[in-house]
Every structure is written in C-alpha cells, then in structure tokens.
C-alpha cells in the first residue's frame, strides 16, 4: 500500500453537530456527490442537510416478511393437510386460524432478517478495511468529533476549492486521507 500512497479524500473536523450540519448543507449545495458526514451518533436532520433520500431498508424487510408469511402458511398447509394429514381436535386439516401463529412468527423472523441484511447490504458492511480507519484523528469519530469527508473520486473534486469551502464552514482542521 505504501508505494503509491493514493489520496482517498479530504477530511475536515468539526466540534459541534450544528457546525457539521451547516458544513453539510454547504457541501450539498456545492453539488458534490461522493462525500459523507461522520458522527458518533445519528444527527437529527442530517439526512435532509445532506440531501439524502429516504432509506430503502423498508422494502427488504417487507419482502422478508411477505416471504415468511407465505412460506409459513404454505408449509403448514402442505405438511398438515397434504403430506401427512392428521385429525386433531375436530379441527379442519388446514385452517388459516390454526396456522396463523406460526406463519406470523415466520413473518417477523424473515422480516427482521430482511431489515438487517438489507441494512448491511445497503451499507456495504461488513468491511474489515476502510482508509478512514487508518487515519489518526478519525478514531475520535466514535468519541465526540464530527467529520466531513469528500472523496477524490468525486467528479468535482478539487483540493483547493474544498479546503476553501470547509474552512468557510468553520472547520479548523482539514487533512488529506490516504488510500
């Protein structure tokens, strides 16, 4: 990794969520694409400040839940009414009522899987390596500092412009992150 030492991007440190939010609004308005805000906790209203759309995780979960419910109902119908019918308690071989509790639990189980796997997929996690994690100051992101990072892969990337922008936003410490 040491031979080419490519630049990953520019990192600007902030001390309060309000400053970070204003910086994010400026970066958003300047039209950058490949950038992100890093914070120790989710900041309320940051999604809007960054111009992000609503998360898609819900769809994964909905899909999981629907699969779970259908699987549960079909499974019970097949097992108790088709493949191995057994008369119990004078009840029909298959009734949506009798099958409901289990189908319901499966809805929740697969819905939860959908939510978690969907989140991991959308976030491209797990990843065991990230250029930022090597950056010295960045470990404060889980403590009490906030960072705005603009990547070199951004089409509008220009170190000078970005430095100016982020300095104007109130960052006292802007550094280069290496790949």
């Amino acid at each position, binding site marked *: 990794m040491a031979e080419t030492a490519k630049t990953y991007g520019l990192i600007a440190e902030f001390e309060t969520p309000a400053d970070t939010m204003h910086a994010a609004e400026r970066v958003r308005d300047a039209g950058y694409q490949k950038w992100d805000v890093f914070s*120790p906790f989710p900041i309320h209203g940051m999604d809007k400040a960054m111009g992000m759309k609503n998360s898609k*995780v819900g769809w994964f979960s909905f899909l999981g839940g629907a699969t779970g419910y259908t699987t549960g109902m079909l499974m019970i119908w097949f097992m108790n009414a088709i493949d191995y019918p057994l008369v119990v308690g004078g009840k029909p071989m298959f009734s949506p009522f009798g099958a409901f509790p289990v189908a319901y639990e499966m809805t929740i189980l697969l819905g939860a899987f959908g939510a978690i796997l969907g989140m*991991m997929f959308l976030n491209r996690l797990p990843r065991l390596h990230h250029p930022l994690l090597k950056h010295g100051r960045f470990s404060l992101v889980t403590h009490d500092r906030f960072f705005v990072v603009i990547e070199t892969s951004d089409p509008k990337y220009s170190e000078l412009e970005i430095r100016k922008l982020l300095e104007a936003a109130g960052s006292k410490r802007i550094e280069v992150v290496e790949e």
Partner: protein
Amino acid sequence: MAQIASNLKIHPVPVELERPALIQNQRNVGWISDRVAEIVEGKTPTWWWCAFVPSFLAMTMLLAMMTYQISTGVGVWGNNHPVAWGWDIINFVWWIGIGHAGTLISAILFLLRQRWRTAVNRAAEAMTIFAVMCAGIYPAMHVGRVWFDWWLFPFPNANGPIWPQFRSPLMWDVFAVSTYFTVSVLFWYVGLVPDLAVLRDRAKTKVRKFIYGFFALGWTGANRHWSNYEKAYLILAGLSTPLVLSVHSIVSLDFAVSQVPGWHTTIFPPYFVAGAVFSGFGMVLTLLIPLRKILKLEDLITMRHIELICKVTLATGSIVGYAYGMEVFIAWYSGNPYERFAFLNRAVGPYWWGYWTMIICNVVIPQLFWFKKIRNNLFIVFIMSIFVNIGMWFERFVIIVISLHREFLPGNWGYYRPTIVDILTYIGTFGLFFTFFLLFLRFLPMIAISEVKGVAVQADPHHPLGGAKAGGHH
C-alpha cells in the same frame, strides 16, 4: 422543529414541572464514552469476582441437575398426575416473562419516542437474551427424551412423511420462542455495532482492537450508514413489538386453548403480556439499582429513569390487577360450576397462600408506586421490585399448579410438591443468568453509548450546546 407562528403566546414552564435532564450534571458527549467504556476497560473489580464465582458454581449445578434429569428421567421432578406441569413450566413462563421488559424498553419505548430508554435498553436487552436462554432450557428438558427435541422442527426425516402437528400450541411455542430469541439477539447486536466501534477505537491492545473491530463490522459512523441503520433499527423495533406481544400471547395460549377451568379464558393473551412486562420491569429495577451504584452511573441512569420504570411497573401491575378481577368476575358471571370452583379453590383451597402472595405482590404492593416519596427511595423500590419478581412467579404457580391439582373429577385431585431437583435446577438457572450477565458487564458496554449521546442536548444541532448560534437556525 416546527416553525412557530409569531403571534403564539408561549408561557414558561413552572419550576415544579420542569423535566429533569436525562443526563445529569451536563456531561458532554465524550464523557459518556469514557464513563461507559471504562467499565469494560478497567481492571476486573473484586465485586465482580465475588458475584461471578457463585454464579458460575450455580450454573455448574444446573448442568449437573440437567445431566441427572436427562440420564434418569422426568420423574426426578415433582411433576406427576394430576399436576403434569410443575416448576418446569412455571419457570419457563417466569423467565420468558422477565425477558419481555427488555424488548419493551428497546422496541416499544423506542416507537413511543421515550428517549429515556437509551440509558437502560442495552442492559435490559441483555437481560432478555439471558432470560430467554434460561426459559428455553425448560421446554427442551420437560419433553423427557431431549435427544428427540429436533422432532419439534419441521425437518424432513426418513420415517416417511411425518411432520409436526401445527395445531398444537406447543408447536407455536417452538416457533415463537426461537423467533423471539433470534430477533432479540439480532436487535441487540445491531444496537451494539456502533458501540463496538467505540471500543475498537479506544482499544489499547492489538487483540482487543481486532476482536472489537471484527464485531464492529467496519463501522465508521458515516451518515449514509446511520440513515440505513436507523431505518433498520426502527423496523426491528416495529417488528419486535408485535413479536413480544405474540410470544407471551402464544405462551398464554398453551393454557387458554385447553378446557381446563382457570385456563380457558379469553383475556389470557393481553393479560399474560402485561404480566410479563410487569415482571420484566421488576427485574430491570432489581438489576439496575445496585448496578448504577456500583458502576457509578448515577448521571446516566438517573432518578428520573428509576421513577419512570416504577411508573411502568405500576401501570402494568394495575392491568394485571384488572385481569385478575375480570377473571373472578366472569367465573362468577358464567355460572359454570367448574370455573367458579377453580377460583374459589385458588383463594381458599390448599394453596391459598400462593394465591394471596400473588395478589399482595402483584396488585397491592405496586400501588405504592403512586407515591413520589416511595419512587424516590431506592431501597424501598429495590425491595418492592423483588416482591414483583416473587409475585409473578406465584402467578404462574397459581395458574399452573392450582388449576391442575383440582380439575373436574374429585377422584383426580392431588397435591403437588416440587422435589429438591426442581429447586436446585431453578437456582441453577439463576447461575446461568448471572454468569452471562456478569460476562456481559465485563466485556460489552452496558449502556448504549451512541444512543445516549444522541439524546444529550449537545447532540441537538438546534440547541446552543449543540453549537447552534443564538437566534434560531439556518
């Protein structure tokens, strides 16, 4: 923040109604990491060993009892005709009920936007998981031949097409409890990820950095991640809420779908859920009151938290009281002699002491929580929380043993006593619970660091302490 019309008159809050801050002494965001992570990073304290060694020994005893039971048979327990469900199912329901408070705090209070939950949810969720582990032992063991437990799951097998019978509430239990355990663990883990990253970034040794880093999944705190993360968390909360309701409802159906007097009653599902939450909150108090003292977390788990937990306990205790009353009323109202006898037998039969312990502990004692003086006296609250635990144990005793020991035919009546194996197994589950809980305290952050930071005033970009300039935002 909604824009406020300028002509609106807004009066200041009277002093006596000001809400106390969720984090005392204006601690800043960094302090929260330090305080919580120190518990995990410091030297193992003496008290921890003093608690761990007996817990571990008790867990060993549990293993011994299980080995004895498996090798000998269910006969080593007190279960017999006519009380075929004894301490095994009592303890199963008791433990799983305790677990419900964790899910309630983490999921339902989250949906209700009760921000105070952040200080207690991690420990309560851990409590849930370990309580469900203790609970799960019993149904697995009580089948007698545990090596056939896998028959409970719909695996294809070589004996021709033989499948589980899904009209049985015991099958519903299998799915409910295993789903509950899985989802609780996942929910807990998702909540832990950002905090594991905190520990990773603070780690001094390579080994710690690797282990915490491995489980932190490469979390960077990127807002694009937080966005999906928060959505997933919200959905998990949304799924866990009906899940927690369904789990204890299904547990209640184990009884309610039968025809046993005292078991077959329509209010059982919500009544069981309320009781479960009630007992769980009792356990949360029992655990947290000493912990906040020993671990010096008074600024994070404040008196306001304790008071609020007391109030939830009071509310659920009252709902349980309503259900007890309704049961008795409808037993009378129905005119069914067996129903009537079942309730009379509870109150004045040979197990009258069980019934009245239940009433006093679950209905009478929690009413003391109406008084602020009592809610603010930690010693009394602690003692009361133990009564809640006892009371809810007796509730299951009343439902299971008292209903079964005198059913329809007097010729079938009997008297149930637990054996020493029952008792030691039960004590052993405490060993299991506390062993895991203590390990959790030692190796994982017991307070959700990033969530508590999120409710601090310093985290609010519209608050002056969050950096907002005077005179509004934008």
